[in-house]
C-alpha cells in the first residue's frame, strides 16, 4: 500500500534484487525512481502486499513468481521494489 521516497530505499532496506533463489517475500512498496514504468508492474501484478517468490537471481534479469505468473524484469526495476 505504501509508496516510498527514494531516500527510504537508500540503505538498510531490502529490494527484490537482494532476494536469493527460492526466497519468498512480501512487497512493501514501490519506489518512485523508475517513474511511470512502475504502473506496468502494478498491471502485471506486483503491488504492495503481494507475495513474491524469487525463481532466479543470478546477476542478470530477475525471474520472479507473482500471482501465479512468471515475470522477468530487469534489475533497475527490481531495485524499485522494496520487500520485507
Amino acid at each position, binding site marked *: 500500500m505504501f509508496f516510498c521516497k527514494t531516500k527510504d530505499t537508500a540503505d538498510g532496506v531490502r529490494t527484490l534484487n537482494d532476494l536469493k533463489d527460492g526466497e519468498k517475500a512480501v512487497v512493501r512498496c514501490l519506489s518512485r525512481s523508475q517513474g511511470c514504468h512502475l504502473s506496468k508492474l*502494478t498491471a502485471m501484478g506486483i503491488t504492495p502486499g503481494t507475495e513474491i517468490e524469487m525463481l532466479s537471481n543470478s546477476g542478470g534479469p530477475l525471474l520472479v513468481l507473482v500471482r501465479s505468473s512468471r515475470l522477468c524484469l530487469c534489475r*533497475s526495476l527490481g531495485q524499485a521494489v522494496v520487500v520485507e
Partner: protein
Amino acid sequence: MSEAIATIALAGNPNAGKTTLFNALTGSRQHVGNYPGITVEKKEGFVDMPSGTVRVIDLPGTYSMTAYSQEELVARDFLVKERPQGIINVIDATSLERNLYLTVQFLELGIPVTLALNMVDALESKGIRIDSDRLADLMRLPVVRTVARSGLGVREALQAALTHPRQSWEPLFISYGPDLDPVLGEMTKLISNAGFLADTYPPRWLALKFLENDLVVRQLFEADYELHRRLRDMADEVARHCEKTLKTQPEFLIADYRYGYISSILRQGVLTVMPDLQGRADLSDKIDAVLTHQVAGPAIMLAILYGLFSVTFTLGEIPMGWVETAFAWLAELAGKMPPGLTRSLIIDGIIAGVGGVLGFVPLILIMFLGITFLEDSGYMARMAYMLDRVFRIFGLHGSSVVPFIISGGIPGGCAVPGVMAARTLRSPKEKLATLLTAPFMACGAKVPVFILLAAAFFPEHGARVMFLITLAGWAAALVAAKMMRSTIIRGPSTPFVMELPPYRMPTAMGLVLHTWERGWQYIRKAGTVILAIAVLIWAMMTFPGLPQEIAAPYEAEMAGIQEQLQAETGEAARGELEASLAALERRLKEEALTHSLAGRLGQAIEPVTAWAGFDWRTNIALLGGIAAKEVIVSTLATAHSMSDAENTDFAARIAAAPGWNTSVAVSLMIFVLLYSPCFVTVVAIAREASWGWAAFSVVFNTAFAFALATATYQLGMSMGW
C-alpha cells in the same frame, strides 16, 4: 461479406489465447505462439451464428487500459472508437486474479463483457479450482469455460456475448476509498458538465485515467485549456495529499483498490487453490532450472540452434534433390520448344528464377517446423530472458530478442513481421535501434543464397556455414545497435519487464498448421511477386537485344562450324567441333547479357563492387534483391543459365564460373546478410518509425554491409583463399 449483425472484439492479457479462440471461431489461421505479444495488429473475421453473421475482431493483448506501448493503444483505440457491441474477455484461468485486473477496467469503461475462462484444461494440474457460476453471479456477467486449443466452448462464448443481458454500454462504479472518491467525483462532474468527449469515454473513466497519469488521455485534455488546468490542479493536489498522509501515489492507490475489488470477489468461494499441488512442483520451473541455468542455459541454446541446422540439412537434402530433378525435367521439356524469346522466357526466366527459389522449399519447411516448435513450446521467451544480459551491453534489451528471432534470428523468419513485433518495445530509442537492426537477421529469403554458396564452396559443411552466418547476423545487429545507441539514438536504457509463459507441449496439429502456413506464404510469394520480378529481370537481361553487327560474326562462324560438323565423320574431330560450337554459343550469350540493360547497369557499378569481389552479374542479382531477397538466387540462376549452355547443377556452375572463389563467396554471403532491407521491410520500417529512418536503413545497412564485405574479400584474397 453479408451484413454483420454485431461486432464482438476479443480482448485480454497477452498470451491468454485470444488468437487461438479467434482461429477456432472463424476458421482462419492467424499466428499463434506461446509468448506474450504475438498479435500486434487487429484482425477481423466473420462467424455464422444462428442469428446471423457476426464480425469478430482479434485484438493485441494488453495488461491494462493505460496505453504503454503502441499495440496496447491499438486495442484501446479500437474499443473506444469503434464501440463494439461487446467483448469476449479471454482470460488465462491459471492466473485469474491478474487477468481480472484488466476485466475491471473494461467494466469501468462500460463495455458489455463476456468472460471466456480459457485454458481450463490446465487448471487441474495446477491445483486450482474455479467456480465459474459464482464468478458470473458476483461480477454480474456471463462466464463461459473454454479450451480454445480444442475449440471447446468457443461458440458458446460468442453466443453468450451476443445475448449479453446488458445490451448497451454502462460503466461499472468502483469505490476508490475516502482519499480518492471525493476528488474523483468532482473531476467527473467537471468533465461531464463540460461535455468533454462525452460520446467516447465515460467521464469517471477519464478522471481515473487522468489520475493514473495516462499520457494519451492527458494529451486529449490539452484541447480544452481551462478544463485541463483545473483537472491538473486537482490531480496535483490529491497526489500531494496521498504522498503526505499515505506515502503513496494515486495510481498505486487505484491499482490497490482494483485488486482489492477482485480479491473480494475471488474470496467468496470462486477460487480454490490446493496448496499441496502448488508452488515448486511446477513442471515449468523444473525445466527452467536446467534450460535457463546461468551456465548451462546459453550452452544449451547454442546447441539447440546448431542441432536445428544439422537436422535441417541432413533431412532437407533428400526432398531438395527431388524438387531439383523435377525442375530439371521441366526445363528439358521446355527445351523441346523452338528456340526464341518464348523459350528463353520460360527456361531462363521462369523455370530458372522461380525454380531457383522453390528448390529450397523442403529445407525452409523443415526450418519453419523447428522455429514453430521453439515458439509454441515457450522456449523463445526464455531466449529473450537469457539474452537480456548480453543485449543490455549493446543498448538494447530482452524484448528486442523476439523481433530479432522473428526476423530470422533463427533462419527462416521474415523481417516484416519482425519489424512490426518491435512495437511491443515501450521505449522509443530501443525500439528504433531494434527496427533498424532486425533486418540483419538471416530471413527465409536470404537462406537460399547461403545454402547455394555453401553447397558450391563448402560442400559437406552446410549446417556449419548456416550456423556461423546466423551468429554473424546477431553479432552485426548488436554491433550496429551499439554504434547507433552511442551516436544518433543515444539515451539511457529503459526498464524491461516481460511475462514468461509456461512451457506447453505443442500439439502436432498446431505444428503442422503453422509450419504449413509459413511455408505456403513462401511458396505463394515465389509464385506471384517473385515470378513477376523474375520475368521483369529476365526482360532487363534480354533487352535491348544484341545489334546485328555484333551478333553477325558469331552467327556466321557458328554456321560454318555447323557445316563442317555435317561433313565430318571422325569421332575425335566431331567432339572438337562440338566443343568449339558450345564455346561460341556461350560467348554469344555472354555478349548479349553484357549488352542488355541489366548487364550495363551491373557493369556501371562494377568498378566499385569489385572491391568486394562482386562481378557485374552478381550486381544484377543484388540490385534485384532490394525488391525481394529471393530474387538474388533467382537472378543468379537466370544470369548463369543465360550465359552458360551446359546444364549442370546450379551450385557446380557457380563454383566453376570465372571470377568466383572462396573469398568472393564469403564476401557475398556477408553482403547479402547485411545490405539494404527488402522493399516491403523498408515500408514497414517507415510505418513503424518514419520515411527518414527507412531511408537511413537502406543507406546505412548497405554501407555497413559493403564495408564488411570489402574487408572480408580483401583479407581473403591476401590470404590466397
